[in-house]
């Protein structure tokens, strides 16, 4: 417990020092010069004020809601598609072999270049952002599920067969849990990418959302607004990551944690 308090104290200390230096360099002249021009770097106080104003006026909630909706939709649709296709490919090697070069091709493509296409197809609303997030999430989940099915221990598989499992039962009791465990272990990455897809999509053209907010502020050289958007986004991601950790702990109880395994 003491250790934990100390750790948190140190973590807060890092933030205080960083913000303190920022404040110092943007306000106090050192040898007669301001090191960081507030026009380009803003000031901690201004950024905090902007964040506070957004929350006080309540206008931030709409943008947060839009980004959250897009991220969730991208995550759910991308995961679902990734699980289904990954499972299908892993169980049908011929299909996997046929599609292999195309999967590699699309995965190698920087997804940002798809954003204009999605905007043309799906308009400026949330669905073009969801589509961008889906292309990111899909491949992470797809590769993990594919691997999960492929990497089932041959002994566990033989054991399942000897216990009398049919192909359907193998899928349900062996391949499926293994695939899901791989997917869950990549939950942090895939949720993170869902948010990236949403924000980048908003930034490139939207009528709402955190990415839109940052892009708007940038358009009028409102550096405090850009930083405030980043602060809100960072807090948003930390909260989501915390939720994912909770879900993960619940879903992967059967997994050994380092140092816990007995031999």
């Amino acid at each position, binding site marked *: 417990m003491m250790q934990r308090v100390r750790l948190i104290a140190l973590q807060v200390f890092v933030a205080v020092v960083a913000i303190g230096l920022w404040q110092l360099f943007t306000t106090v002249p050192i040898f007669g010069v301001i090191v960081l021009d507030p026009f380009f770097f803003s000031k901690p106080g201004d950024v905090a004020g902007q964040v506070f104003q957004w929350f006080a006026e309540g206008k931030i909630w709409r943008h947060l809601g839009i980004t959250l909706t897009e991220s969730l939709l991208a995550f759910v649709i991308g995961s679902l598609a990734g699980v289904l296709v990954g499972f299908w490919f892993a169980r049908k090697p011929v299909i996997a072999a046929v599609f292999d070069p195309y999967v590699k091709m699309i995965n190698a493509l920087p997804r940002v270049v798809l954003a204009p296409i999605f905007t043309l197809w799906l308009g400026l609303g949330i669905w073009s952002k969801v589509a961008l997030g889906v292309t990111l999430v899909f491949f992470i989940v797809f590769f993990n599920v594919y691997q999960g099915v492929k990497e089932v221990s041959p002994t566990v598989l*033989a054991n399942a*067969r000897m216990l009398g499992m049919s192909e359907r039962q193998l899928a349900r009791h062996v391949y499926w849990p293994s695939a899901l465990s791989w997917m869950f272990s990549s939950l942090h990455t895939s949720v993170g990418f869902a948010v990236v897809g949403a924000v980048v999509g908003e930034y490139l053209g939207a009528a709402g959302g955190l990415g839109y907010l940052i892009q708007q502020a940038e358009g009028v050289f409102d550096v405090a607004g850009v930083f405030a958007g980043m602060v809100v986004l960072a807090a948003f991601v930390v909260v989501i990551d915390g939720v994912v950790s909770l879900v993960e702990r619940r879903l992967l109880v059967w997994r050994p944690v380092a140092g816990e395994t007995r031999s």
Partner: protein
Amino acid sequence: MPAAAGAGNGQASAPAVALSDVTIDFRLLGRGTYTAVADASLRVADGEFVAIVGPTGCGKSTLLNVAAGLLMPSRGRVDIFGAPLAGLNRQSGYLFQAEALFPWKTALDNVAIGLEIAGTPWEDAQSRAERWLTRVGLAGFGGRYPHLLSGGQRKRVGLAQVLIRDPKILLMDEPFGPLDAQTRQIMGNLLLDLWSADRKAVLFVTHDLEEAIALADRVVIMSAGPAARIIGDWTVALARPRDISEVKLDRVFHDLHREIWHVLKAEVLKGYAQAEATS
């Protein structure tokens, strides 16, 4: 003589497992074939405990996989209770050497799964699994996931997982191999204890001659590979019930051990020489 009695039963009804002139070839990538086992014939009567001993890499596990139906022999035939084996051996339970439990299921669910997939109602399967966990000495451990059990405990769960289905034949591939010496003895006694309740036919593969003699009615010796053959078959004239640590002090045990080891030693050395030559 328990083995003689077993053989007597075997004549009345078909043997539980009958391997006749089984040869197993593996195709090597671009280098022809590798014959693992050649012309092996082996009979296990119903209720008989047979141990197969041989040097490492002699193909004894391969032979077991043929009896399980996990592997098709290249030549020869496999009969289970008089009927030729096609596909998996549904009348057998298989205890593996490596970790074979489902890591995402609790100990209880691991034991119950065999019944569940056979259509037993969930509650019934759970309560019977609970009883089996108690029988293997793991009462109260049902909620644990495999990674929170020790190696010996995992083997106990594996034993319960196989036996709850009440297979007529028990196939065991060096099941206690990875365990330490004391745990092996305890597990051996547990196995004999459970086996004596309803004598199933057992085919037990091991590289440990002492373990084989202590457990089995018959000890079968295989030669070093490639093209390993069965080169000896001894009846163990030790009374049952046995206690593994006590039985090892018996005169009969020592004489038999010396006799079999005399044959086995030559094969073990051959096996090492071949391993050296190929590496």
